[in-house]
């Protein structure tokens, strides 16, 4: 693999670690062992690959945007994770974790969700494998992502509203961790991004490497080599780390795009929350700040530790875009290519659009991590 392995204690450089209550330590150690064994087991890999192909619809295509390329002046290609079953890249990770949980004898999946994409994916995997599923979602997000709440319930999951703190993704993670502290004997915490305590950042990355490897091959076929630039949105950072993993050893510029109101790397300093040491938006006393973004999926004050490491080493750089730029980009892709993106990857496109002058004549692969159906109601209000 082209991205580095974490150290045995789960570090990417200075970042990562296992900052969880004592109660959860045996569970994260057991999970790491189980994951290592499963990943080395051909029967587990065959079952996962089978589900990724026949259930999730992998490989996802890469689409060249002829109209938009002409308008922007660069050669823009989209990695179409929006075409996966459940509508985003999240399915790659949940299928891996759900199979692992079943292998570990766990009967219940716990998940947090922001926009609802990970919650829907987790509920889907639980339905498929006959497991219980409980999804925590902040009250603010329950309101703005009504459709995904209904989808999760249709899939048989219980959706619990997180009423504490900012009532968004950060608080959904807190509630999921509190649940796990009490139910660790029969529940697996199916964390939805490359964050949390070791082994999650590394394990979730590994499950998303499939999209990076596909994108690398597709770039070879379409461009004759790796692109000049790979860009993806970053909340916790799972879709970005997935696509970066395919190009880390290439002379490709890697760009992560954070929301201006949730720019952990852009505006944060190192801190420790949710089990990891990483960049974090916090006040001078260490109280975690509330992120504020148009996109529920990126409304998170922290970031996965490997992104902090990639930022510190300079292998990737992190930019931010405003909500207004995202709304523009959302409409731009819809009108020019007939593809309605989720608000999250619209951040990546907003950056490409803003940087069109510096990107002129270059090839850009953008990870279109999810489709926009879930955001249409919110956009109707914004554009009214």
């Amino acid at each position, binding site marked *: 693999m082209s991205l580095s392995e974490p150290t045995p*204690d789960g570090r990417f450089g200075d970042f990562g*670690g*296992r*900052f*969880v*209550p*004592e*109660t*959860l*330590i*045996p*569970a994260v150690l057991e999970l790491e062992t189980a994951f290592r064994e499963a990943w080395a087991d051909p029967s587990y890999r065959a079952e996962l690959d089978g589900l990724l192909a026949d259930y999730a619809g992998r490989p996802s295509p890469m689409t060249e945007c002829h109209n938009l390329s002409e308008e922007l002046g660069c050669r823009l290609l989209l990695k179409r994770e929006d075409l996966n079953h459940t509508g985003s890249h999240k399915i790659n990770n949940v299928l891996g974790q759900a199979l692992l949980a079943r292998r570990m004898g766990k009967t219940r999946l716990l998940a947090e969700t922001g926009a609802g994409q990970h919650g829907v994916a987790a509920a889907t995997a639980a339905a498929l494998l006959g497991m219980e599923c409980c999804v925590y979602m902040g009250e603010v997000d329950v309101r703005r992502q009504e459709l995904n709440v209904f989808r999760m319930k249709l899939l048989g999951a219980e959706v619990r509203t997180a009423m*504490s*703190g900012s009532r968004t993704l*950060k*608080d959904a993670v*807190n509630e999921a*961790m*509190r649940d796990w*502290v*009490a*139910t*660790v*004997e029969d529940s697996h915490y199916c964390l939805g991004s490359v964050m949390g305590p070791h082994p999650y950042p590394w394990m979730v990355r590994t499950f998303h490497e499939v999209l990076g490897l596909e994108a690398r091959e597709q770039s070879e076929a379409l461009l004759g080599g790796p692109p000049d630039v790979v860009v993806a949105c970053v909340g916790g950072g799972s879709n970005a780390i997935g696509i970066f993993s395919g190009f880390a050893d290439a002379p490709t510029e890697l760009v992560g795009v954070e929301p201006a109101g949730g720019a952990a790397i852009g505006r944060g300093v*190192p*801190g*420790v*929350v*949710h*089990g990891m*040491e990483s960049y*974090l938006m*916090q006040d*001078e*006393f*260490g*109280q*975690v700040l509330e992120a504020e973004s148009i996109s529920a999926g990126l409304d998170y004050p922290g970031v996965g530790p490997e992104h902090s490491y990639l930022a510190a080493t300079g292998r990737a750089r992190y930019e931010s875009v405003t909500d207004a730029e995202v709304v523009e980009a959302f409409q731009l892709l819809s009108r020019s290519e007939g593809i309605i993106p989720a608000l999250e990857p619209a951040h990546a496109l907003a950056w490409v659009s803003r940087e069109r002058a510096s990107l002129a004549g270059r090839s850009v692969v953008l990870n279109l991590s999810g489709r926009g159906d879930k955001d249409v109601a919110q956009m109707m209000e914004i554009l009214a």
Partner: protein
Amino acid sequence: MNTDLPTGPLEAALRARRDGGGKCLVPYLTGGLGGDWVETIRAVAAAGADVVEVGIPFSDPVMDGPTIQAANELALAAGATPTSILDSLRGADVGVPLAVMTYYNIAYRMGLERFADALVEAGVSGCILPDLPLEEADPWLEVAAAAGVEAILLAAPTAPDERLPRICERTRGFVYGVGLLGVTGVRAELAASAIQIATRLKAVTDVPVLIGVGVGTPTQAVEASGHGDGVVVGSAVVQRMVDGAGPEGVAALVADFRSALDAS
């Protein structure tokens, strides 16, 4: 090893209670909650607490249940900061050793050395960081030892047997046995796991063994203390504060725990 360092004032107070045939009582209260929280510390100390544990509120308290979460939010909304709480404790002279309970990011953000020094300057003897497991504790344990802060470690019911002696060797002050699988809060009954963890810890250490999380009534305190050396009582105390009982009302609750433990 414990023998490498002199016993701190917090551990000395707990050992004195235990050696006198008594059971240790450590009430927890949220710092910065209401205008009279320092008075409340004095009152509960006078009512029979051996040590008082003061919470420094954190925005994301993952080991805490609804009662302490709500108290955290109230204190933060009222403007409590780690600095304001330690300033209030400095020179408060409550008559018993103090410990703070907070989350690791509060210490990390201030810088571990500065945080430890700030505790010492404020007259705080001990510190509990419930999201700092043994695997990540080395930097803090070294800094705390150098500054003379008793760094109290937790031991959970999920810990395998081999882990407990490793925790007990590194902890200072006491070992905090987590009474149940779950977050802080009052439960209808004491969990069987409280008695199990107390028994398992007593089998491997001479350090005082206190049980907390899910110890909410004098009866439960007596039951848990029957197998360990005492209890930490948090949510029940904090609920009294939130209800506006004032220093005397909170002290009355602590006195109930004290007399139940003394009669046991």
